[in-house]
């Protein structure tokens, strides 16, 4: 299920909450996002990421060819990120 910290409009404050960039209002991470939700680049939506178990998987998108990664990793600055089609 998507959560606020999966949204690209979310400004992270701490491990439980953040601000919505549109409203500057505090939102709790583990609550359903609003209709303006747009996915933030994370490993879990990358085509180079192959999920396994325990929120972890394998990344094959960087020069080291293959390395473990995890679902929730923010990939905004990752050169190997390719959003799932």
């Amino acid at each position, binding site marked *: 299920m998507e959560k606020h910290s999966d949204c690209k409009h979310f400004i992270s404050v701490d491990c*439980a909450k953040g601000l919505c960039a549109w409203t500057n209002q505090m939102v709790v*991470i583990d609550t359903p996002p609003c209709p303006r939700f747009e996915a933030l680049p994370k490993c879990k939506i990358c085509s180079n990421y192959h999920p396994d178990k325990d929120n972890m998987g394998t990344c094959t998108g960087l020069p080291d060819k293959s390395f473990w990664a995890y679902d929730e990793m923010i990939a905004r*600055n990752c050169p190997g990120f390719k959003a799932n089609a």
Partner: protein
Amino acid sequence: MTTNLDKSKKQKLADILAEKGIGMSFQYGGKAPEEVVEREFTDLKPHPRVEKLYDLYLNTLSSTCMEFPYWYNRTYAEYEYEIPVYRRAKALSVAFERTTPVIIPGELLVFCKAPFYRGSFPMPQLSEAFFMAKEDELFKESLDRGGSSAGELSSIGAGGGNVTKSFGKVVSIAGKFGIRSEEVPALCRIARQWYKKSVDDLGNRWERKVPSYKLKEKIMRTMICMFDSGYTLPQGREVMSYYYPLEYGFDKLLEMCKELRDEVAGNADGDGIIGMDRLYFYESCIVLMEGIQKWIENYAAEALRLKEYTDDPQLKADYDKIHDCCSWIAHGQPRTFYEAIQMIQCMHTIVLNEDALSGMSPGRIGQVLYPWFEQDMAAGRITEDEVLELLELQRVKFTCFDVFASFGVVGGVLSGNTFNNLAVGGVNRFGESAANRLEYLIIHAGMTQPCPQPTLSILWDERTPEDFVLKCAECTKIGTGYPAWFSNRMGIEFIWNHYQKEGMTLDEARSYAIGGCLETAPAVWKTIHLNGKEYEIPAGASQPAAVGVHFISNPKILEMVLFNGYDQRTDIQVFEPHNKKLETFEELWEVYKDYYSQTIDTLCRCNNIQHDIWRKNNMCIIQSMFKPDCLERGHHIGNMGYRWNGTYNIESCGTINMVNAFAAIDKLVYREKKYTLDDIRDAISNNFGFYKADEINSFSLAEQVRKEGGEKYDKIHSDCLNAPKYGNDDPEADKFLVMWEKWFTRVAAPSYESLFGLPLYTCQNSVSTHASQGRACLATADGRLYGTTFADGSMSAYPGTDRNGPYALFKSATTWDQSWSQNSQMNMKIHPLAIKGENGTKHLAELIKSYLRRGAHHIQFNVCDSKVMRKAQENPDQYRDLLVRVAGFTQYWVEIGKPVQDEVIARTEYESI
């Protein structure tokens, strides 16, 4: 009829003594009024944007995540076969480049350690043992967590921003940091990667080769010593150098490094051991600086991105300002005050991300930033009010810094503090006062925006202008515990004494500042060129000024002497039994020195190995790029690239309880022969008939509760409590302080050598260890009871025992030459009424000066009505922003442990001065 409550009340020590007509007063110079008295200057407010950000901070949880560690470890693995320094540089560079920038609306100063407002992250490459030990527990908890955190946020107010327990999908680590449960498996995986490879593990493998290693283990288990510094906090307690990027900018620095790399490539230049290493160091600087530039540019891009969300013209202007500033300072020398202070924020954050470190101190930044301040003011580019706003923002931003370490380090030593010490005053190279207008504003910002960081220190000198002294005294009166007051003369004397062997001149000694709590740290003068004008600024130029042997419990060593090297608490024979009868005080003192020397020798050798592993496998590159003279020499810290390298020390704890215990034994056993040493031993073993502090969950002496039948120790306990006490200008107590300090500072410490082949010095501030180590120590012969907190620092009186007023306390404290120690520490608690109004400010300033003029090193104050602290202990949620001075630092009341809270409450409150 007597109720149970009455009975238990009568069993408290304070009441028992009162019944016997023995006063145990925690007030001096009068009696505080019944009603609570507020501090002065509470009506001062920060600028609105600062107030808003600070409110956010107060409601922000200390958070951690795996982003930076992930990229560091992935790249580190990719470069497995590279030369260690380059491999580490590459890993850091990629981690910076890929870390997500976070800008909070309203901020003007940006950069975060981790993608949170108040974030930090684990560094298992230093020590993974903590996570490994907790792995099953954390892992299981993370998988079990399915709830939502929405409704539970309000339940974690107690403890301030500390995530003291797990909730929703947030898992608590070390009782302080919150991590998303989804990321725990990644944390455990990285921790496993470092098993048997971390600095901690490798250091331990090699320190076992020290013949006395088994003694070290016993010393640590019994809490005679508190912690290892080689893998816990290997850097810090030192002063930053912001010089190179401020003078050259990153593009020019890169160019310089490339030229130097080309010069040294393949040349040993007469140094057959490490001459060739210079090539790898310069190349490492280059790759790391490129990563840092991208990290700064990511913040510029983030500002532009956020600008698109808002129609608010002020916010749009803020984002433009941040974008333009970051775009510029990623490459060039700062041109304005705003760019310069932003550069400082940037550099400080970078340094904190390289290693687990506390006490990374900005130093004399009022003097570092002065060139930009002076020129912007003259050109009308900025107003003092705008400067004040930036300084307030800087305070909030620094307060957001967290250091990620294990529970023992964060709770037991640091009390969650990060000790970023900002110093004002002092003198310039020529011995003239260095205080300036910008420093006046820095102090004022400390009043308008009170918060723990950066903590402030004034280097008071006879030449410091009186209006500046009074401004600092006003700031002291707001009750945040800063500025701490240091004697500039004593600081310079210590620095010059110690670093002359490395070629330091008196001029250079004058550039020093305070690193961490009270760690006097050396620096150098460097020249800034700005628009054709030259300015000399101080720049930190030393190794961490407090690493080495930390912290030795002085009263615990005495306990070992009395009990033939045996620890009753843990049932461990720590030292070889001395089997001496201890028939004279001199014999007791000889055994004490012997046990102490064994302790230092073992810990010093083991710590040297840990730090050696650190410098070989986890060397510091970022600070090495910034601090003189690494770039000039082509060597990082591990190869002694810094100008000053003799910074290792021995830290002690509980000095005054040890002094008072010596005085009691000397009087009662050896001079008056009222008791035998066995009588004293029996009383100590039975805690003078009282419960242990842990059993009643109270850690101040007066609150201790007597057991039924404990009356039989009343007489000996009263005699011990009434024996001479330090802090009363009583030579019968003070002579033991002089005896101790002469040996500790002049004989013991200098006879040991750091891994850099340079002698050690003493450091005498307790941080929070006086609570933890007090808990591990039986009763002491001064009448202190088992588990109660020691006197803080090294010069503070034990609570309630300084009965003759502040000037008697000052006389006791200055019976020895304090310039032989890196510091000493004096905490006083003054009731706000005692220094009220303009006259009160002047009296306070004169009190401070009279102490420092006598040859003291340091003094600081809690200006607070003790009743406020008691109320805060009962209702922590209502006192989220109450600040107190602990040992050498200011901290939120709600973020410190009960043993320290009890000690701060119990300190003698001066009702008049």
